[in-house]
């Protein structure tokens, strides 16, 4: 009995995958079609994020973005946005760190 409860608790703690995620994985569709954001870092000079939701803060030393499940914080120096549109953003400059939470 106790064991069953533990397993159930374990299951509850895991977040349920969304339908979109299930479909993407099952059909092996490209990741871009799911609603996960994709971050590509080129050296420390350029960072591109696909599938983000919005900008929270934009400064030359720190940029904060919002994605579906979490927030991305980028800090560095001379940070500029190379281009930005509905779903993608490319940040360039001297990037020191990225934090996801």
């Amino acid at each position: 009995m106790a064991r069953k409860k533990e397993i159930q608790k374990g299951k509850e703690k895991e977040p349920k995958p969304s339908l979109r995620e299930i479909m993407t994985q099952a059909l092996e569709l490209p990741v871009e079609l799911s609603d996960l954001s994709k971050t590509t870092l080129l050296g420390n000079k350029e960072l591109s994020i696909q599938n983000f939701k919005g900008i929270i803060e934009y400064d030359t030393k720190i940029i904060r973005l919002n994605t579906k499940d979490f927030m991305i914080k980028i800090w560095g120096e001379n940070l500029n946005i190379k281009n930005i549109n509905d779903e993608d953003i490319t940040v360039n400059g001297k990037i020191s760190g990225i934090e996801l939470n």
Partner: protein
Amino acid sequence: MLFTRIVDFFQGYVVLYLEGIHLERFLNMAINEDIYLWDLKRLSETTMRLKVSRKGFKRLRHLAYKTKTKVSLCGKYGYFRWRKKAFARKFFILSVLLAVVLIAFLSSLVLDIEVIGNTTVEKEVILEKLNEINLKKGVFRGNIDRDKVSNKLITDLDNISWVGITEEGTKVIIEVKERRPAPVIVPKEIPCHIVATKDAVIKNMTIENGDAAVQIGDVVAQGQVLISGIVTSEKADTRYLHAMGSVVGKTWYEETVTNKMFEYEKEYTQNVHTKRYIRFFDYPIRLSFSDQVPYYNYDTQTERKIFGFVTWETNRYSEYTLHRKERGEEEVKKQAEEMLTENLYKTYDREKVLSVTFEHSYNEAGELATRLLAECEEEIGEALDFTKEMQIQEEEHADE
């Protein structure tokens, strides 16, 4: 993304200078409206610079109002600006375009035709023949069919045995080689004999100047003197004349051809393979997958459509199989006789031919050999200058 940037450049973009306290909010609203921004640079806590397409800029204005952001234009770029200036100079642009088109068009025409190598045939005659097959100044360069041109000149003009056609830009150079050398004409002041051009039997003689050296019915050899320019008489001294006259003799013409008793006949299967090419200034770009034709025996048929310097070429390859077909003896004999007769009449006119005989025989290889023997009458007189010979003789006598 790059593609949209190119498009935006063509359609024009602006550089904006933003000032406000809710710049991030402004950005979020902009991207939600699907406006593409690039080259963002944060200048201070309240100012920012960015680039946006002209269309996007128009939609930004009300967002700026909502977020209380001050927007000022830093610069306008793009094709549209150039176009505005260009329209002020409409005619200049138009004439530049026209000049380019005109040059391209003119380069694809034939502007000059040069004829070299002709000594007996007049240049005008050759140009007239070329005109008949549509090779003249102003025709498209791509339309020249070299085989057709050389065939036309060789068949129509007797003296021409070879034709070469080269193109140097817009100039077409026609080089001809002639068959018979120009006849040697001895000037009237110089004494000469009339000699025989080939072996013959004398049929007719008409003497205008000189002494006859042979009689009607005589058999003469090539080079033999027919009318002499040296006239001796008892009463006067030896005179040296320029012999003139016409000597008609009976000559022989002989030719043999061999023909095989079978032939290979083409039987076309239904298979046709097509390949297409585009040519830019004679350089072909293959539009089919490979360069190989999948048949062993095939006929090629080419169709060309020419637009200035661009040519659309379609090649059709029709497959055929060869069948060995035995030919009837009568048929082969008849064909051989016809061919020999045709050759005969190329050299001699019909009236000149007195008689024609054929001899057929089989050789060791089983082929039919046909021999044509014809008797013709023709002018056999030719002037021969004997002064040089006489000079040499005199010198020899002087030595003695």
